[in-house]
């Protein structure tokens, strides 16, 4: 029972991060139909934004700065790299996000090097014991922030006019344009939200372990698996997907395959794409269009 609880408590914050990155993919994909390969690196921008801000701000303020910096970089990427290519096909737009990801990662590396960075947690104190398992106080914050982001996004997409306009773009961009929805404004909002969600959750995670420049790549792949599980459409199921990946990863790490844990997780991506591209949803997004 204790090990099960510990497994759950270990997987919960990790799953929140994978889920949040998955949500970042989904928001952009719903609006533009493209996959943003730079999601992992933009999340890392958020984490480093928080690291820098933590020198002058309390942790909660630093995390907020992290969210904003990731959102800003995401929007900059849209205007500098993707908007100029709007007349090209999706393939070209996808390739360009890969280029942006590399540029962002190496620019950060030139400034910060490859070492680990950390800052103080929001609430100090020892780890908390729940039903035989332990969890860091900061990890609880990671989960809380993720859930808050989910509630905010759900409210935004289902209850506000802007959110509904964004969903309309997802269904039919052309028709959305005709009824007077400004596609550039919508894309800006989508990229800002996408960057901010990824940035805030990864920034919140930094105090409970640490962050390095190279973290973005693996996080991006795991977030992508979460997005597949969410059918590249459903934000709630994407978070559930993130948690499932974390469970698989934690199980693999404590089993006999310790050194193969990442291999198993990434193989899952290929297996899912082949066997169940619709993830936890019922219908394939590729057919839904």
């Amino acid at each position, binding site marked *: 029972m204790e090990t099960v609880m510990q497994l759950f408590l270990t997987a919960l914050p990790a799953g929140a991060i994978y889920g949040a990155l998955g949500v970042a993919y989904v928001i952009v994909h719903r609006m533009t139909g493209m996959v943003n390969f730079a999601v992992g690196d933009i999340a890392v921008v958020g984490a480093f934004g928080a690291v820098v801000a933590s020198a002058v701000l309390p942790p909660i303020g630093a995390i907020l700065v992290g969210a904003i910096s990731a959102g800003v970089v995401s929007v900059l990427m849209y205007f500098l790299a993707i908007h100029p290519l709007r007349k090209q*096909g999706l393939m070209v737009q*996808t390739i360009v996000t890969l*280029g942006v990801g*590399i540029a962002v990662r*190496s620019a950060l590396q*030139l400034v910060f090097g490859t070492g680990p960075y950390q800052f103080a947690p929001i609430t100090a104190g020892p780890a908390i014991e729940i039903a035989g398992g332990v969890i860091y106080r900061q990890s609880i914050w990671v989960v809380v922030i993720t859930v808050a982001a989910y509630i905010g996004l759900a409210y935004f997409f289902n209850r506000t006019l802007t959110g509904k306009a964004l969903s309309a773009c997802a269904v039919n961009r052309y028709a959305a344009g005709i009824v007077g929805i400004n596609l550039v404004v919508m894309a800006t909002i989508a990229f800002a939200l996408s960057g901010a969600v990824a940035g805030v959750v990864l920034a919140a995670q930094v105090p409970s372990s640490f962050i390095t420049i190279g973290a973005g790549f693996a996080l991006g792949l795991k977030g992508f698996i979460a997005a597949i599980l969410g059918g590249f459409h459903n934000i709630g199921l994407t978070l559930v997907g993130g948690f499932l990946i974390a469970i698989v990863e934690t199980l693999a790490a404590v089993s006999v395959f310790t050194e193969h844990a990442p291999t198993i997780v990434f193989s899952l991506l290929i297996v899912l*794409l082949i066997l169940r591209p619709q993830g936890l949803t019922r219908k394939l997004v590729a057919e839904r269009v």
Partner: protein
Amino acid sequence: MRVTWRTAVGPSLWIATVIAVSQTAGPYLSGLGASVAILALLGLGMILVTGYAGQFSLAVGAFYGIGAYGSALLTINFGWPGLLAVAASAAIAATVSQVLGRPLFRLRGHFLAMGTLALTEVFYLLVTNLKITNGASGLGGIAPLNLFGIDLIRTDQFFLQNWLIVGVVLWGCLRLRAGREGRALKAIRGNEVAAAAAGINIASSKTRIFTASAIISSIGGSLYAHQVMYVNPEPFGIATAIDVLVIAVLGGMRSPWGAIVGAIALEALNKGIEVLLPGVLGAGAVGAGQALILGILLVVILIVRPDGIGGAIGAVANYFRRQQRVNEPEPAASRTSEKEQPVGMAALRLVHDENRTGIAPGQGQLVLEAIGLTKRFGGVTAVDDVSLQIFSGEVLAIIGPNGAGKSTLVNLLSGNLPPTEGSVFIGGEATTGKPAYLVANHGLSRTFQTAALFAEMDVASTVKVGAHLRGSVGMLRSALPTVGALREERRLDAEVWAVLERLDLGHLADREANTLSLGQQKQIEIARALVGRPSILLLDEPCAGLNKAEKKNLMLLLRQLGAEGLAVLVIEHDMEFVMSSADRVQVLNFGATLRVGTPADIQSDPSVIDAYLGVAHEECVPAVVLGPEKGSQ
């Protein structure tokens, strides 16, 4: 392609240059050149998948690694001869690409990108963590390749060997582009729906080019292993896949030459950075600095020049070619102006039908039969229990108000949509629910309501895609043109030309199809459908964008096609055209059949007049009386 002495000039020049450089360059330069050749080889593999077929794949790292580790493990552990190890590794890469390609190519493009990215990462993690590959320390002591008893160990030998292989692959890629398979891939890249309608098996074509690319990458990896004689995981990760992507983007995806240009340019760039950057940012910044420049380069090139250096060179060459052409006389204009006759369509038809030879309408055999076709989209029933029959030698028109389900019906017949209920038979064989490319195999050709042409393709090639099923040359025979393949291309060219002449499109043959007027585009679509020599032709609103004279010609064409024994189904709103071209008319309303009969029957049917025609056809004057516009008072 005609085989003349000119055909041999290019390859001979290539071979001579490679030999000359390998003999004159020193060991350092030839070693560098040999490694650039391997990158060019990988670039060629990427251009096949991403440039030719338009599918974004990052699997090159994994396939490159399969070649290298395959060669290493098979020669070290099992003592296999080098060449056998190269072939076995390539076979493994081919198998992996087949297993992975089929399911992944069902999905949209970027899922393939992520799936292949994961494949490369999984491969990298496996060779890093497995005992058999000796983890991060790698495997040493790989034997050099032995060719005719000579061990290849010197850098000038590597240079010679690698660039000759690049030459062979480059030549194959160039030939493939001009052949049947290359055309099919370009069509897929341009418009998948139209490509499938021409009988191209899209998933199979994509998987085969993916496999070709895997084999090329694997051979590149084997060359690396046998020349460096040591492999470790580092060169086979994502970084290499991205390097290769940059090579392809930098050089240009549209031509295989892009891989050669890109590989040389990237190497020059990297060497430049290694010299300049330490002075600016310190020696430790070289790795990150190179990556930064690589990333920015990728973005900037895609924005400034998406077709890369190769595309820029091509544009300059085209400019000069056009300058030359200005002095040549304009090509003869269309014949339509001379042929224009000041008679109505109905009269024209009478004249035509009086002179009709061949089978008479109503005597043909049943070609296509649909029974109880129903299509529901969620709660909407677009087509509701429609049955129809089309016989050879007749023109059947489907008419009905907008939203009556006409285009959906055509999509059900052609396999572009699976029916919810009901069945379709072509020539007595059931085609219900079969995908479009298989239905095309049953002799069905079609056009689309909005012209579906292929991006960046000239008219002759566009039409030639329609002849896909008239040929049989596969990927290998397209790449290494055999006598049979060349003969087939010539036969297809003749068939295409005959159809172009018949539709009076010959003067447009080398124009880019997508830049022409809507009317011309619709006629090109008809040409593309006809060149496949179908037994049944489906035309979805062929008159859109056609002028009066062109409509008359089209009407005559349909009558002629009928007389030749073809079964023609046409959807059209132009009633004069419908009534004069059709032998029978079927009226749809709210997804169901309202009436079937001869044009005369339909025009006098009260229910049809109510639902669609509005007034009896004879009273239908062109000048429509308009009421006062709303809000204009």
